[in-house]
């Protein structure tokens, strides 16, 4: 329809701007309001949603048959059967009233989706232009691409503002469909397979989600329990079964072990899609819903079991990240690990841990989107996403290297965001049931995290004596997005006390009647540290005398400026460096073979505990 790419790009940028301004406006107008419910008419909307759901099922069935993905077909059929049965026999009497709502947590999610999601969409315009120049063999479906991206964002907004569980589910399924379409964008065999893998695993979750409706409609035929707030307030004895079912769906969407493979496979998609899936959409929907159900899980053994799934995933996924040389894969496993930590915090569910979980969601979204987009940019310029090829990035792409360093620092270093949350998590877990096990896992996991991030950071920041600045070729639109995200990463660390007091603490207070925060003097120290970090680079300019430069020590060998030297038998050798990957200890296959069964057992344990508890009349 629109022949000119410029116009299309401008429309995307404009839409992104509107969405981000919209979410900021929402924040500005309603952050003081607490929880506000809206009685949006249920019946007509439900019919529209039903039609769309059937259409989605038919589309998935068609695609499943076309690509001979019969397991996917089967799963779609099961899920459709459940929803149809529910619609035919139970849905008639349901009249949930408070269908939409806003509270502080929704606002946080909306800000993440609105600002980060739109920035990624804007970045994608220029990325996709280059992408199709580099890959002429891939069919240009950019219209579909941007349509789905915005549908995706819209579904995320719907998800975080819906108080009606049926609506949450509707948007939930749309995010599954959107990610399926985006992962399969390039239509290669690998992309198609990975898209179906994501679809299958997320459908498993969808089935559990749908099954919770059967239970809810049986317990309360009037449909009152379909309101999220009413369900959570109804007490653990009623809510624990749907909570565990829906949190199971959350585990699949948040790519926890044993479902982690879909998120790793999703990296075949164009990089903006990965950025979107990892930061502001999809996986964040999974942890969002678990955080919502945290008060129900609090104090239950089932909650501890689900939390353990998160903790084991955190430890093992971090360890796997050590053994990966592919930058996108490292990012993917680090996402899985961090989501694991969020799941662990939310499932154990004390106020301190929920505070930490929401902090993690925010910081992870900012830093991870920055990292993905930086890696995408580097890949387009150098043709490699391998960390081993990132030697001297600081020489070739100084600004991008600094941004990668900021993003990495944001992921693991004091005084940046993720570390604040990890620290709060340690303090939170100590006083929680089975806390010592969680603290142990966290202690080992964070040690591992330091290792894989720091070695990558070192690679990027090593100043090679060769190489030239190639940065001029990066488009302006990309710079705007990358520098905004880098600024957000730093700002998030500077402003987190404000975010905490304005949004997170009121939310936690509203849910639990008590709240959590970091001690004042610690916050002051952290802010001082950030300021120190910001001022340190100035010392480069103030040093009065320039130090004399010498070549590196090469054992006295005659070496050329690009570090080549005469080896034995007169063969010229080049000095190269390589990071440790420890594949024999932290290999992907090896650790997945360990983690998947443990997590399956833990999930089964959670289910068994709930079932057993029901039969005994207690909440386990």
């Amino acid at each position, binding site marked *: 329809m629109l022949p000119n790419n410029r116009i299309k790009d401008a429309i995307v940028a404009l839409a992104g701007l509107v969405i981000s301004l919209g979410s900021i406006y929402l924040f500005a107008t309603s952050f003081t309001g607490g929880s506000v419910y809206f009685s949006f008419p249920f019946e007509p909307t439900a019919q529209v949603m039903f039609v769309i759901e059937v259409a989605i099922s038919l589309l998935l069935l068609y695609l499943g048959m076309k690509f001979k993905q019969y397991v996917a077909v089967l799963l779609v059929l099961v899920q459709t059967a459940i929803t149809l049965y529910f619609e035919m026999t139970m849905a008639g009497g349901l009249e949930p009233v408070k269908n939409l709502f806003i509270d502080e947590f929704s606002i946080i999610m909306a800000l993440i989706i609105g600002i980060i999601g739109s920035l990624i969409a804007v970045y994608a315009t220029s990325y996709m232009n280059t992408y199709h120049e580099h890959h002429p063999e891939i069919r240009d479906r950019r219209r579909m691409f941007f349509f789905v991206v915005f549908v995706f964002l819209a579904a995320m907004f719907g998800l975080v503002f819906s108080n009606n569980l049926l609506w949450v589910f509707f948007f939930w399924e749309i995010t599954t469909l959107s990610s399926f379409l985006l992962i399969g964008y390039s239509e290669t065999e690998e992309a198609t397979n990975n898209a179906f893998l994501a679809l299958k695993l997320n459908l498993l979750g969808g089935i559990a989600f749908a099954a919770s409706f059967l239970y809810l409609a049986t317990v309360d035929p009037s449909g009152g329990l379909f309101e999220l707030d009413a369900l959570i307030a109804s007490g653990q004895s009623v809510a624990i079964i749907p909570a565990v079912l829906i949190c199971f769906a959350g585990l699949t969407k948040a790519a926890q072990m044993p479902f982690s493979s879909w998120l790793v496979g999703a990296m075949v998609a164009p990089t903006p899609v990965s950025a979107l899936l990892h930061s502001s959409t999809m996986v964040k929907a999974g942890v969002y819903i678990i955080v919502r159900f945290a008060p129900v899980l609090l104090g239950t053994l089932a909650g501890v079991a689900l939390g353990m799934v998160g903790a084991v995933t955190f430890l093992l996924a971090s360890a796997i990240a050590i053994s990966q040389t592919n930058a996108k894969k490292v990012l993917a496993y680090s996402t899985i690990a961090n989501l694991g930590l969020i799941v662990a915090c939310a499932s154990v569910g004390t106020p301190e841990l929920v505070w930490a979980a929401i902090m993690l969601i925010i910081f992870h979204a900012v830093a991870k989107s920055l990292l993905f987009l930086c890696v995408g940019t580097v890949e387009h310029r150098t043709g490699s996403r391998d960390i081993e090829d990132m030697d001297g990035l600081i020489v070739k792409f100084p600004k991008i290297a600094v941004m990668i360093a900021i993003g990495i620092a944001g992921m693991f270093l004091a005084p940046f965001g993720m570390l604040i949350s990890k*620290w709060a998590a340690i303090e939170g877990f100590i006083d929680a049931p089975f806390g010592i096990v969680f603290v*142990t896992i966290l202690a080992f996991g964070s040690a591992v995290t330091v290792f894989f991030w720091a070695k990558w950071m*070192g690679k990027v920041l090593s100043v090679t004596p060769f190489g030239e600045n190639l940065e001029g070729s990066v488009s302006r639109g990309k710079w705007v997005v990358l520098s905004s995200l880098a600024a957000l990463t730093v700002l998030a660390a500077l402003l987190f006390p404000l975010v905490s007091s304005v949004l997170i603490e009121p939310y936690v207070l509203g849910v639990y009647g008590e709240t959590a925060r970091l001690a004042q003097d610690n916050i002051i120290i952290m802010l001082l540290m950030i300021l*120190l970090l910001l001022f340190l680079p100035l010392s*480069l300019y103030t040093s009065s005398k320039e130090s004399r*430069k010498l070549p590196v020590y090469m054992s006295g060998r005659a070496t050329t400026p690009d570090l080549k030297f005469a080896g034995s038998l007169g063969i010229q050798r080049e000095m190269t460096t390589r990071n440790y990957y420890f594949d024999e200890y932290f290999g992907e296959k090896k650790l997945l073979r360990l983690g998947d069964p443990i997590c399956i057992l833990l999930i089964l344990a959670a289910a068994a505990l709930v079932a057993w508890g029901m039969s005994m009349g207690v909440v386990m």
Partner: protein
Amino acid sequence: MTSIITAIAFVILAPILGGLVAGIDRKVTARMQGRVGPPLLQPFYDVAKLFEKEDVTVTPSQNLYIIAYLVFMVVSGAYFFAGGDFLLVIFAFTLAHVFIVLGAYAAYSPYSYIGAERELITLMAYEPMVIFTAVGLYLVTGSFYISEIATSTVPAILYLPGVFLGFLTILTIKLRKSPFDISTSHHAHQELVKGLTTEFAGPVLGKVEIAHWYENVVLLGMIYLFFGFNPVLAIVVIALAYFLEIFIDNTFSRMKWQWTMKSGWGVAATLGFLNLVIVYYFYVGV
């Protein structure tokens, strides 16, 4: 809760104390090896000489990283002696360490690169046990604040013998003592050029040395926390512990990095973890 005076005292006195400890270390080491050894103040002469040397670098960014290393070492230590949150102190130390590692990477030199990677391995090896130390002391004294742990009347050592032994083990790693001095070493005979510090020279190397003094004082301060109920005993134990570290340093040759990992994680997973579980379930803090 935090005291600025002790923090300032640390900033001023720690290098003097740390330098003296280094001097004693060299003297005792020499005696163990049947030598006379340098004068007690030799470390100060060495560092003073380093600062008189020409400032040569491979890349100017090294200077920046080392300044950051020193600054954050001082800040973390000052926060420790101000009585701040133990966990924040630990994380701030990690930040400082990452800076020296980045300085080594920045040079893009084969030897310092290997040293940087190995330094990260040691970091990974000791980190869990350090966190366990903080957690153990919290379980026993009920606080993460150094000020409250140090002044607690609870005999922490009686409840945390496993954690203490674990801490002594990783102390060997943190002090860069043999057999765990895999990233850089004070002993020329077992060093791969100079590992982490190969490409630092003159004033930059002097700063690394001073940062090391600051760090050692904090590490010895951590031993104190186990004996806060009896300051005299604490000082005796610190002296004994340091002597033990020198002894180990002189009786073991360097081991492979795998051994460092296994030792660090091993003590954390066994001594540390078991001790914590026992305290967690059988002793609920005061």
